[in-house]
């Protein structure tokens, strides 16, 4: 809350200079914390590089950064990497869309209907308690060893955080704000579009980001169980052929893809969440 001199501002004339119309106020990024955070890993990488180059270690099992970079470069140059990236991204994408949509729909149903909540929520909470990887054998048995079981596993991973996030967000919407909608006689659909959706959007974005993060975790498991394509396949392949540089390269690709997908959600939601940006201040 601002502690400005309200008394003087109340008649409006004096208030003009105080806040003014609001332009795009993009805060300048501060690179210093980033550099500070990078210092330790960079130092460790350089030290290891120097150790291997000076012949103090062979770097056979823990390849120096240069060898990882070369492995990554070769995979990218030869074009071998891209089908793997495509396969993994497609699986995560499909699982995310399916699990996310199911999570949103059941989250909405659970928050709208007490009956649905009492009927379905306990069962879902029970299922949530099962470590999702425990589903793997069943999914393989039911859905086969190809894409369907992989996507189903990812969708299960995405579903729960989205379901919980949406249900919690709708149940947490301020009744007082809903009442504003009632005063203006909004229909159920209008109320959802003009009040509920914007009100839950911040929580929805957080839920989707959490879900997507889990999606990337589960795709590794899914591909690790047997795949002829995908970044996870590169991991298995690297392990079986004794190529630690390829394994680390694949890990790096996972990290990059995960970060890029997360940034994508944030960027898509940013225009709708602009009103919120000042709340993110305290880092």
């Amino acid at each position, binding site marked *: 809350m601002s502690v400005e001199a309200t008394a003087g*501002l109340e*008649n409006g004339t004096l*208030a003009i200079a105080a*806040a003014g119309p609001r332009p795009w106020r993009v805060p300048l990024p501060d690179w210093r914390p980033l550099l500070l955070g990078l210092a330790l890993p960079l130092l460790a990488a350089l030290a290891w590089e120097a150790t291997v180059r000076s012949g103090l270690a062979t770097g056979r099992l823990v390849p120096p950064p240069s060898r990882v970079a070369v492995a990554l470069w070769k995979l990218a140059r030869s074009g071998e990497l891209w089908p793997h990236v495509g396969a993994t991204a497609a699986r995560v994408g499909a699982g995310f869309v399916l699990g996310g949509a199911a999570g949103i729909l059941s989250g909405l149903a659970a928050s709208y209907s007490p009956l649905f909540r009492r009927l379905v929520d306990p069962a879902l909470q029970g299922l949530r308690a099962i470590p999702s990887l425990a589903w793997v054998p069943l999914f393989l048995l039911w859905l086969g060893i190809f894409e369907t079981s992989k996507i189903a596993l990812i969708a299960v991973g995405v579903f729960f955080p989205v379901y919980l996030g949406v249900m919690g967000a709708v149940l947490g919407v301020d009744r*007082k704000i809903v009442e*504003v909608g009632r005063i*203006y006689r909004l229909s159920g659909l209008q109320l959802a579009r003009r009040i509920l959706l914007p009100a839950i959007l911040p929580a929805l974005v957080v839920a989707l980001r959490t879900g997507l993060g889990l999606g990337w975790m589960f795709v590794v498991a899914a591909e690790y169980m047997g795949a002829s394509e995908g970044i996870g396949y590169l991991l298995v392949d690297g392990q079986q052929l004794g190529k630690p540089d390829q394994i680390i390269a694949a890990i790096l690709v996972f990290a990059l893809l995960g970060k890029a997908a997360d940034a994508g959600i944030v960027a898509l939601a940013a225009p*709708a969440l602009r*009103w919120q940006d000042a709340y993110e201040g305290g880092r």
Partner: protein
Amino acid sequence: MRGAGDARETLMSVALQISGLAKTYPNGLRALGGVDLGVPAGEILAIVGGSGCGKSTLLRLIAGLETPSAGSVRVGGDLVGGPHPAVGLVFQEPRLLPWLTVADNVGFGLAALPAGERAVRVATALERVGLTAHAQAWPRELSGGQAQRAALARALVTRPQVLLLDEPFSALDALTRTALQDHLLELWAFERPTLVLVTHDIEEALVLADRVVTLRPRPGRVDNVQAVAMSRPRDRDAHNFEVHKRQLRAALNQSLAPDTLAPDSLTAAAL
């Protein structure tokens, strides 16, 4: 006490007619026990009473946010069975939608209008409440008084025949509150809607209202109706104002006195 008011009601067109209005909550609490009130068009009516006297319930019933257990509310002849297009409501808190700019908040109830007309109406409303410079600000950038003025603009922009105000200035500091009371009268003068104001502030009631209704609690019912025959703008320090104040305070104290001597008397005395 009711004589003067009733005579006027028959002369002027009645904007709001409340008949036998009662509300008992499912938990058995009798919030309102049969209220009859007629409010002529353009009148400013204040409703005062101690806490728990049902004044907020009365306002929510008029707004159509609650359904009465008995009796009826009519706005311009229409039976109120839910929020009515000719009735606006200003809450105790601004209740602006944080994801909309001030201008979009003010235009919230005008979604059915074409964009051009809506923009004109919103601009006029913002000008009247002195927030033109803040049209594109987010609600959280406003001070408490500015936010409540934006809420007033949002309620008035739909040109309601009846505007309900539920302790609209009680969360503000004293200076801002006085300024906004005067401002409300300026706004009222534009289209002269009927105002029904719930307040616990005797001075606020006397600055604003043509008549002040005192409710008696448990269950809430009309205890006293005081006409305020002072021309506006009213001087809060004038002798006549003091006389009215004393009179209204006496009525309020009387309404808080227990019907019979009950353990309640202690709390009533404390108030």
